C-alpha cells in the first residue's frame, strides 16, 4: 500500500474541482436532467472528500458517511426523475426557465 500514497491535499483538490464543475453545471444548464447530473457530481465530490479524510486518519467514519451519501443520492435520483417525468408531461419541455410560472 506504500506505492499508492497520494497526499490528502491532492485528493481534496480533485474533490473541490469536481464540486465546482457540478456547481457550474447547476448554474449554467437549463435542462433538468443535466441539473440532476450536476447534483450527482457535487454529491460525489463531497463523498470523495469524506473517503479521503477517513483513509488519511485511518477512521471508518468516512466510509460510513459515504454509504449515507450514496443512499441519499439514490433516493434523490428516484424522486428527481419522477419529477422530471411530471415536468415533461405538464410543460412539454425540460427547460427550467420555460417552465417558470412566476411573474416577478
Amino acid at each position: 500500500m506504500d506505492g499508492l500514497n497520494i497526499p490528502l491535499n491532492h485528493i481534496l483538490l480533485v474533490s473541490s474541482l469536481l464540486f465546482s464543475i457540478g456547481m457550474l453545471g447547476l448554474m449554467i444548464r437549463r435542462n433538468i436532467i443535466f441539473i440532476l447530473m450536476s447534483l450527482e457530481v457535487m454529491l460525489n465530490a463531497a463523498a470523495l472528500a469524506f473517503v479521503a479524510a477517513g483513509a488519511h486518519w485511518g477512521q471508518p467514519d468516512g466510509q460510513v458517511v459515504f454509504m449515507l451519501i450514496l443512499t441519499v443520492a439514490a433516493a434523490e435520483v428516484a424522486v428527481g426523475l419522477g419529477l422530471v417525468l411530471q415536468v415533461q408531461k405538464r410543460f412539454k419541455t425540460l427547460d427550467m426557465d420555460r417552465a417558470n410560472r412566476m411573474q416577478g
Partner: protein
Amino acid sequence: MSETIWIIPLIPLLSSVTLMLFGSRFKVSQIGALGVGSVGMAALLTLLLAAEFMQNQQVIQLSLWTWMEVAGFAPGISFYFDGLTLVMMSVITGVGFLIHLFSTEFMEKDPSYARYFAYLNMFVAAMLVLVMADNLLLLYLGWEGVGVCSYLLVGFWYQHNANGHAARKAFMVTRIGDTAMALGLLLLFTELGTLDIQTMVGEANQTWQVGDTVPLAACLLLVCGAVGKSAQLPLHTWLPDAMAGPTPVSALIHAATMVTAGVYLIARTHGLFLLAPTAMTVVAVIGITTSLMAAFTALMQTDIKRILAYSTISQIGYMFLALGVGAWSAGIFHLMTHAFFKALLFLGSGAIIHCLHHEHNIFKMGGLRTRMPVTFWSFMIGSAALAALPMTSGFFSKDQILLQAYQLSDIGPGLWMAGLLGALLTAIYSFRLVFVVFFGKANTEPDKDTGWRMAVPLSVLCFLAMVGGWFMIPVTEVFPVGDGSHPAHWVEYVSISVPIFGVLIAYLIFYSGRLKIDGLANSGLGKSLGQFWLSGWGIDWLYDRLFVRPYYGLANLLKGEPVDAIYGLIVALNQTFNHWLSVAQSGRMRWYLASMVAGLILVITLAANLSEGVL
C-alpha cells in the same frame, strides 16, 4: 306700540323669505308689491312709533327671549329703542322705501326681479336688527347680515366676472374689520362680563378711569370694525368697486345706510369712547384724512358712480371727524342728511344710467338739463346739499361738525382747516359733475325720461335734502350735551363762504371755461398727480403688491404641497426597494443558485480574512 317694535324688522324678513321660496311663481307686479309693500309697512310703523316717541320720550327696552346661555353669558334677542335708534330706523325704512319704489322701475326688465327684492328686503331686516339691538352680539348679527346682503347685491349680476370679484373684495375687506370687532367684543366681555350696551357702558365707567389701556384697546378694535364697514382708511378700497351692483343698491347700501353702520356703532358705544380720548383722536384723524384723500380722488374720476362713491367715503370721513371730536349729535345729524342727499344723487345717477343705455362716463353725457328735468333738479339739489351750500340740509350738519371741530383744543383748528379744504374740494367735484353732465353739448341722447316710480322718490328726496337741515333729531337724551359755546363769528363766515367759492371755481373751469386748467393738467407734475389721484392714491396698487401678490405667490408655492413631498420620498424609496426585491424573486433556479454561490463566496472570504486576523 312699545311692546310690538319687533314687528318692524320681522315684516321685511318675512317678505324676503317668501320671495326667496316662492318668488319664481309670482308675477312681476306681485313681487314689486310685496317687496315695496313690506318696507312701506315698516316705514309706516316707524312713523307711528316716532309720533308716539315725540309725545312721551319713552325709551323702550324689549326682551323677547334668551338667545343662548353659556356659563353666565346670556345674550338675549332684545331690542333697545331711543332717539338714536329712531333716527336710524327712520332713515333705513324711509329712504329704504323710496329706493325700493325706485327699484321697481329700474329693475323692471331684469330676469331676477324676485331675487333682487328678496336680497333688498333681507338687507332692510338685517339693518333694522343692527340698529335696534340691545346687546353687541345681536348688533353683530345684524352687522354680518348686512355684510352678506351687500355681498349678494354687489355681485347681483354675477354673470360678469368683474362683479363677482368686486363682491368678494367687498366681503373680504370688511371681514378684516369685522374680525377686529369680534376681538373687541370678546375683550369687552372678558373684562366686563356683559355685552348689553347700556349695562356695559355703566360697568365700564365704574371699572375704568379715563385714559386706561383696556378701554383704549377695546375702542380701537371697535374702530377697526367701524373703519371696515364704513369704508374709511385704510379699509376703504372695497367701496368704489362695490359700485358694480345695481345703482339703487349703491344708493341704499353703499351710501345711505350700511356704510354708516360704523358711525352708528361708535355713536352707540360713545360711553366707552369717552373713556379713551386717544381712540377718539384716532377716529378724528382717520376721518379727516379719509375725507381729504377721497375728495382729491373724486376730483379726477370720470365714472359717475365712482365720483359718488368717493364722495360717500369723504362724507363718512366727516362723520368720523364729528365722532372723534365728540360732536356726537352732529355726526348722527350728518348721517341723516347725507342719507337724504346721497340717496338722491345715487338715484339721480341711476335714472341717468337707466335712460342713457347704461352709460357711466360723465364726459359722454352732457346737455341733459332740458332732456331730463326731474333728474336735473334732483342733481342740483343733491349737489348743493353735498357741497353744503347755505340753507340746504348738508349745510346745517357739516357746519355743526366744522364748528365743533374748531372748538377742540390743540388739534381743533388744524382739523377745521383740513375740513374746510375738504368742503372746498367737495363743492368743486360735485359741481364739476353737474356742469359736465347737465350743461354743455349733448353727447348721448336719452331714449326715455323717468317714469313716475322714479320721479316720486326723487321728488320726495329732493324735498328732504332741502329741508332735512331743519329737522331736530331727538338725541339730546342719548348724548352728553356740549357747553353750547360758539366760536368767533368769522369762523362761521369762513365756513359758509368756502363751498360757494368752490362752486364758483367749478363754474369757471367746467361751465364758462374762463379758468383754463388744461395747461396745468397736461404739465408733467399735473399729469402724474392727476394719475395718482385717479387711481385713488395708488392704495389698490399698494395692497395688490403688499398682500394679494405675496398671497398668490405663497398659494402657488404650496400648491405643489412641499411638506407632502417628504412623505412622498419615503413612499418612493419603499417602492424602489420593493421593486428590487420582487425582481430578485424571479423563480429562476439558476439565478437563485448564482446569488447563493456569490453570497457563499463572500461569507467564506470574509471568514477567511477574519480568522487570519485573529491568528
